[in-house]
């Protein structure tokens, strides 16, 4: 077990190094340098050249790369060109919002997907299963943003049940007031987002149950006279639900890449929205930091998935 985890960590190191190099390369491709935000239009070319020399922008790329990575380790992500604040604090404010939205989405995803998958698997080919399959097909086929647009159009604009933008209304006060307002703003995006995310889990769970139903160990249990309910809940379900746990990491990864679209549709001030805002304002330091962060989080999501999978399925562990 620990060998697998350790091995997985070791694999991550080169991936992390190449990722950081790629992001650095991407940052170098973007126009402008850290002084674009600091200097005013009156500074003369000589002064800029001097500053570039002082801050080492004329050094070899690998020297710059090492300095950049070093700064990252100190938590120094640079200065935003546009907002004139440290990128780290800018991202932190938004990351909190994305964190809450993602948490609620993950909870809802599993809360919706597991009962659906179990019902579909249990009543295979009956009307319940067919209804779930149709629903599942729709969430699979419809592109996320169309789903969100239709959702916000129906529930926020036409019915007026939910707010159309923001994360916490300014008038909210007190712990419960803020929490309530936050939930009120998050609930529609989280539900829509969760519905789109359920597809894989429902399908996987259903297939797992259907396949396990005809396995030898289930037949053995039945022939020993184990009640049907116990066979389903203890034998079939346990073996089918466990692999779902491993999807958690992938779900987190998926949420991050989808956060841009959902946050854009709902004008929700999270990291995805910050990314889009930074790109339209050409705020390259923030962009670079965000891409690196997205990359690291994706890496961690995969790591979590692999570790969880090796816990629930001992066969894939390294010997």
């Amino acid at each position, binding site marked *: 077990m620990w060998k697998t985890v350790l091995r997985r960590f070791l694999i991550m190191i080169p*991936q992390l190094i190449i990722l950081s190099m790629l992001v650095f390369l991407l940052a170098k491709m*973007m*126009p402008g340098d850290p002084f674009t935000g600091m200097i005013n239009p009156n500074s003369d070319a000589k002064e800029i050249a001097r500053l570039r020399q002082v801050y080492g922008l004329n050094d070899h790329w690998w020297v710059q790369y090492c300095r950049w990575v070093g700064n990252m380790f100190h938590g120094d992500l640079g200065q935003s060109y546009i907002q004139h604040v440290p990128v780290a604090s800018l991202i932190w404010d938004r990351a909190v919002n994305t964190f809450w939205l993602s948490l609620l989405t993950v909870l809802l995803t599993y809360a919706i997907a597991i009962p659906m998958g179990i019902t579909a698997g249990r009543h295979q080919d009956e009307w319940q299963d067919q209804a779930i399959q149709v629903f599942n097909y729709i969430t*699979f086929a*419809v*592109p996320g943003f169309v789903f969100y647009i239709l959702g916000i159009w129906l529930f926020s604009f036409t019915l007026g049940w939910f707010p159309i933008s923001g994360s916490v209304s300014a008038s909210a006060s007190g712990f419960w007031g803020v929490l309530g307002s936050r939930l009120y703003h998050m609930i529609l995006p989280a539900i829509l987002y969760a519905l789109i995310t359920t597809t894989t889990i429902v399908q996987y769970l259903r297939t797992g149950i259907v396949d396990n139903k005809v396995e030898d160990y289930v037949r053995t249990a039945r022939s020993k006279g184990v009640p049907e309910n116990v066979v389903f809940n203890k034998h079939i379900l346990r073996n089918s639900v466990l692999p779902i746990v491993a999807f958690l990491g992938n779900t987190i990864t998926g949420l991050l890449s989808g956060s841009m679209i959902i946050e854009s549709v709902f004008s929700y001030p999270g990291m995805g929205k910050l*990314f889009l805002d930074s*790109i339209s304002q050409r705020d390259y330091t923030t962009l670079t930091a965000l891409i690196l962060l997205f990359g690291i989080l*994706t890496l961690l999501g995969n790591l979590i998935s692999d570790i969880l999978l090796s816990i629930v399925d001992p066969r894939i562990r390294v010997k």
Partner: protein
Amino acid sequence: MSQKKKSTNNKSDKTEVSLPPSGFKVAVREIWRDKIALTAFIIICLILIFTFGGSLFLKKSQVTEINIAEAYYGWGQAGHIFGTDDGGRDIFKLLIMGGRNSILIGLSVTAIDETLGLLIGLIAGYFGGTTDAIIMRIVDFVQILPQFPIIIVLTTVVPNYNAFVLVILMAMFYWTTTARLFRSFVLSQRGRDYVLASKTSGSSDWRIMFHEVLPNITSMLIIDVVLTVAGNIGIETSLSFLGYGLPITTPSLGTLIGFANDPANVVARPWLWVPATVLLLLISMNVNYVGRALQRAGDARQREN
């Protein structure tokens, strides 16, 4: 289990017909049998005629020409069936061109991705060992990249950005799933008797890969192509929806749906975004349905044998 599958398959081929039906023929037959899939297929054909046929009668410069005087006409006003947008452009014409562009981008990216994925998957799966290990490390790495944000950034930093660049950028990142799929299939084939027999009789690796293993992949390839086209259309329209897909001068379904990103348009000017949303829904629902139907047929055939 899979071994058994193959051998019974061979036997039935011998008794009934001399050659197993090709992947393409099987696909046609399956769609013909499944009436809903057939309807979906006909709808796709109609959409193709509407978008590709319709755009033959349109000139891009004319469609995208700005005429502020005619901005925001509603449904059917002044001969504009679906009204006009903020620049006075006819939504109906934009819909035709946008639909065509989105489908074309989806097809082009898929063509590149499937070719790359097939080649890489074949090589990795067939040779195995170190070749496979190296290729799979690269595949792993591309897959853990935050692809969507990177594509968005690249669309803004690449000089002379155009639709062709978008195709290349998307293709660069999305070939890995296909490569993985085919690699695992080829991996399961390389130990089969027909491969070993061919090797013993002195066939070159190249010949075995492309003349003997490849024909077994065709039906899988068709399914993957159909589903990937739908997926790529989804990705392109998502990018255009956010404003980082096709350049603003090139109409796309995503750009049209993007009008709904402005709260002022959602309820007050539905003609801007509703037609494109419906068209995109029709495209993705039907293409995916055909893909799924083929997939089910493929699975069922594997179970029967």
